[in-house]
């Protein structure tokens, strides 16, 4: 057991290891690990059960602390207890833990951005673009590409809707396109139905859980013959799916994406955790980051500002 006593080992657990977002977080955390010379253990945990096993696993490996983006915020008490049982320090990223009564667990340090806030940024971007194009709210339909199984997804789209409504959008002009899975094809199929059902509406806006969902809606609009100037889609994430779209020779209805910086979330959390376990320096309890809208013409600049190349 003493073989690894000197070595600093920090875990970084994420809920969806295949997602580019989390890949990036890991990548930046790795950067911190290289700079500071600690070992980073990256584990994917798609559900509560895997997460508990992952914490046990970290304990068994002799890690001293971990950063987690939990598959569900209600896992809070369980994570805290499990971490204590394994004598591990814990920090959260992206999603903040809550206790059984739904209040945030404040003693766990957290870095993130609220889902509702991101949604609101999306809504604002859409409204701005509508104004720029001179659209009137009543002639526009909104596609809410929804995945209500995921609470974060609900919070994001509701955030966007609240801004739309505040700007004169009527509830009956917002149409639900529930995707059966979180991939582009499912969003495409769901959005196609909405477009076909409302063939009289010619101008559309679309928002959803992430870039992939919004891309599905944009593809659907192209499929039914709505040109790029009849669609305003704003995604969330700003990773390759969105960049590919911006790099297309002709502009599409996918006008922008709200980028959240994986660099801060990955690099800084890892660094903070290292300081905590190695030098006993406790991190701030709550750091909130902001999202930034990237569009076709400025996405490279925005990414550079956020520290992603």
């Amino acid at each position, binding site marked *: 057991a003493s073989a690894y006593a000197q070595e600093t080992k920090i875990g970084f657990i994420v809920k969806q290891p295949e997602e580019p977002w989390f890949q990036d977080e890991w990548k930046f955390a790795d950067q911190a690990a290289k700079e500071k010379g600690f070992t980073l253990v990256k584990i994917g945990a798609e559900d509560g059960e895997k997460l508990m096993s992952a914490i046990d696993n970290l304990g068994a490996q002799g890690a001293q602390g971990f950063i987690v983006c939990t598959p569900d915020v209600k896992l809070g008490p369980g994570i805290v207890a499990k971490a204590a049982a394994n004598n591990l320090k814990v920090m959260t990223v992206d999603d903040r833990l809550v206790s059984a009564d739904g209040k945030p667990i404040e003693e766990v340090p957290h870095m993130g951005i609220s889902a509702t806030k991101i949604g609101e940024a999306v809504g604002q971007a859409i409204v701005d673009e509508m104004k720029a194009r001179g659209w009137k709210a009543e002639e526009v339909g909104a596609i809410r590409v929804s995945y209500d199984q995921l609470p974060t997804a609900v919070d994001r789209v509701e955030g966007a809707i609240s801004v739309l409504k505040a700007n004169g959008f009527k509830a009956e002009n917002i149409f639900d396109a529930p995707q059966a899975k979180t*991939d582009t094809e499912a969003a495409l199929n769901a959005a196609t139905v909405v477009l076909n059902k409302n063939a009289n509406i010619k101008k559309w806006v679309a928002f959803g859980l992430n870039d992939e969902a919004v891309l599905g809606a944009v593809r659907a609009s192209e499929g039914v013959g709505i040109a790029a100037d009849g669609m305003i889609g704003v995604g969330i994430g700003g990773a390759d799916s969105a960049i590919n779209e911006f790099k297309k020779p002709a502009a599409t209805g996918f006008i922008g994406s709200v980028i959240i910086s994986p660099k801060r979330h990955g690099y800084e959390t890892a660094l903070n955790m290292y300081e905590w376990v190695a030098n006993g320096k406790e991190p701030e309890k709550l750091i909130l980051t902001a999202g930034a809208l990237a569009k076709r013409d400025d996405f490279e600049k925005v990414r550079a500002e956020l520290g992603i190349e």
Partner: protein
Amino acid sequence: MTNSFKKILLGDQGLVVIFVLAFALVSVFVPNFLTERNMLGLLQSVVTVGIVACTMMFCLAARDFDLSVGSIVAFAGMVAVMASNATGSIMVGILAALLCGGAVGLINGVVIAKFRINALITTLATMQIVRGLALIASDGRAVGINDPNFYQLALSKLFGIPSPIWVLAILFVVFGFVLNRTVFGKNTLAIGGNPEASRLAGVNVDWTRIWIFTLQGMVCAIAGILLASRITSGQPNAAIGLELSVISACVLGGVSLAGGRAAIAGVIVGVMIMGIAENVMNLLNIPAFYQYIVRGVILLLAVLLDNLRSSALGRR
């Protein structure tokens, strides 16, 4: 009841009757359903499932099982995009995808037929491996398409109908013919119906099974290419869970999991029932959580009705 009518109702394809009735009902009662736009949208939404179902039908008919289809679709889509980006030629991309899909299928087939490893385990393994390859190749990110002509694969139309639908229709016809009219098809049914008898009769069982999986792989590649073109990028996370949809559609269409029974008409109906269910639920604006329940109930109803029909009409 006239005799020929009874025969249709009683036939193996009785589900077709239920389907037609259901379709008529839905057309009347669901607004916007029977519009040209919605029909085209509906058909396009079942393209992936429908294409893969063609060969899954063979697979199930031969008493096999393929869980790797979703991964192959995603992988082949990635390959098509990456290869055509690298070479600048869409044709090369398509060929590379077909080749890779076929190769995965071939490996499945060889492992299952020659090493006699359970098909469930084998394809579960390749499902993971291939998904892993797709993720590694792309570093987990979507890969954009450089040449906009690639989009035309899915966007182009013939007689007003988008080409993916044509591809689907052609594959239905081809595989329907292959199943009923060729040595390969009959051998497939025979292997599923009685593997021992087929072997003793000199049917080349191993070879047939290998071919089925190889075809399956290539057909998945077609689906993957069209999908990539539709969503204008290769996505390593595409088509997760596809296997279950495809197998359900086949079983719903009367393909027996115990092998030996399959018909293309049934598979088409199975695919369409599942597609229509999704489509109508969205048209009727059913909330996401209730969609789960409705989807389950429709599945049950379809088979229950089919059972009632056949027992009411005197078959055991």
